[in-house]
């Protein structure tokens, strides 16, 4: 993936070479040249991946719009219906080209459920209405009291950037900010957070510009598979406002609540130190 990331972030890459990226993706999987529709799917998934810098994202956005207009998508197709989660759910075989074929021939998106209840979730027995303030936006929702903040974010509020690693407060992948402080969202019920200001990884970037901590993680290659990364970034962003010693050993201790199976720790520490110097 570093090759793709480097290519994406070259400023003169788009829009003329907009079909090339899917080729690179598919080369990794040994599949043939993509059709324009398959190319559109790939671009959308890359766009949603969070891998890209602001200016490049703007160019891709424009490119997606152009391809979409060429292909005249069905009315049911809208960019925000095509989520990363849906794309990954289609990956049942070794080659992406094979999996894009079903996308071409069948309705690629689910029909939206008819909304009959006033508040989302109110039809679930035992659900209690609540208001959650997340990334500056108020969400009116009904959830059972036993729904954790983590599950509410991922399953009910379409904010799957926060990850479930262990679900028991032992890994830190679920780290979010509550009133500016980092916490494990897996060990708290959503209903306990009415009136709190919650920030997730989706809320760190402002106006399309990456948060300095996000930029530092990109610059220092602070991740491999990426699964712990949103927790690492949220932890590091909160760390900037906590007392922590100057040296790398102190950063390691202050970041000890976030574990990484890929072992990207050295680069994570470098990214955090870089963000602290710049902050």
């Amino acid at each position, binding site marked *: 993936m570093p090759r793709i990331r480097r290519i994406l972030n070259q400023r003169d890459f788009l829009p003329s070479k907009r079909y090339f990226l899917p080729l690179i993706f598919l080369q990794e999987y040994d599949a043939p040249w993509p059709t324009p529709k398959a190319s559109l799917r790939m671009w959308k998934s890359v766009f949603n991946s969070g891998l890209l810098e602001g200016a490049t994202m703007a160019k891709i956005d424009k490119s997606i719009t152009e391809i979409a207009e060429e292909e005249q998508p069905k009315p049911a197709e809208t960019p925000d219906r095509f989520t990363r989660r849906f794309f990954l759910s289609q990956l049942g075989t070794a080659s992406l080209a094979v999996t894009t074929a079903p996308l071409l021939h069948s309705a690629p998106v689910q029909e939206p459920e008819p909304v009959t209840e006033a508040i989302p979730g109110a039809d679930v027995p035992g659900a209690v209405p609540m208001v959650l303030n997340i990334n500056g936006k108020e969400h009116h929702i009904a959830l059972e009291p036993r729904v954790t903040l983590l599950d509410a974010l991922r399953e009910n509020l379409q904010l799957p950037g926060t990850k479930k690693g262990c*679900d028991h*407060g032992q890994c*830190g992948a679920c780290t979010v900010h509550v009133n500016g402080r980092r916490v494990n969202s897996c*060990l708290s019920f959503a209903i*306990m957070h009415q009136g709190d200001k919650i920030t997730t990884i989706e809320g760190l970037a402002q106006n399309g510009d990456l948060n300095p901590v996000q930029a530092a993680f990109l610059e220092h290659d602070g991740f491999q598979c990426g699964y712990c990364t949103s927790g690492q970034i949220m932890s590091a962003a909160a760390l900037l406002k906590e007392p922590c010693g100057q040296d790398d050993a102190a950063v390691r201790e202050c970041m*000890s*609540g*976030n574990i990484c199976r890929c072992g990207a720790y050295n680069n994570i520490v470098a990214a955090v130190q870089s963000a602290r110097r710049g902050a």
Partner: protein
Amino acid sequence: MEAFQFSQAKTVNSALEAGRSQTETRFVAGGTTLIDLMKLNVETPKRIVDINSLPLTQIEPTADGGLKIGAMVRNSDLAHDETVQQRYTVLSEALLSGASPQLRNMATTGGNLLQRTRCYYFRDTTYPCNKREPGSGCPALDGFNRIHGILGTSEHCIATHPSDMAVAMMALEAVVHIQGANGERSVPLNDFYLLPGSTPNRENVLAPGDLITYVTLPSLANGTRSHYLKLRDRASYEFALASAAVVVSLNGNRIQRVRIALGGVGTKPWRSMEAEHALEGREANENNFRAAAEAALKGAKPQHDNAFKVELAKRCLTRTLTNVTQAA
């Protein structure tokens, strides 16, 4: 996780009312123990009362020069408090050695005292457990018991108490203040915790519906030093195999007053008056420290997989005493 009814208490009285009026009601503060155990179906309350809005978040001096810590003070706030860092250093060091920054932001003073054992069999409901169900048996006795206790154990339960903060508070002779059906009462921390005996399901003196409101620390003489040393397999984010909290005041090279507590080895945070008696009035040197450690572990009963803890705890206490008396 089983479903439950949820309510929020805005005042101590309404919390007590909610806790008293129904059975199987638990208070939730940080949730770092309760929700963890609810996911494992070890805790199955029918009702939960959220006490996060209670006005128990202050750290303030007491009239006698000690410290009064509200039950809802978060662990990270307590650890970074200036008075705690300077005058009750062992408490700050103990807190910062425990858990992770995220957990310390959530966990509260009251909740930390009430955290429950990490025994694998307690946490796994497919195993019988005398702590969960008295009389059902203790699989740890013949099982994998590396993390279990060597002090205060019984034939019914050998589970260790995992808190670091509680060990420091033991050495500081903290007092727990409780409100309940019968009004207010104050219990010294060493009397707050119960040995398992034949009733390992009862870990402390709280009655159902009781609420810890604050913890007080007595004042310490000027020049008192304190230190916490925690030994474990990993460098961080892990419970202790053995730990020691020492509060000491010296007169020249003589130990005038010392308080010692051990962690990771007892079924409750382990205050060691044997070690204290072996040291008071003695010269502060390594031989005397080692003798005190021998006294502390004299009654230790090792399990099949944790015999190393006996020597480890002795060296831990010796090293802690060395560190704290040498500090400038």
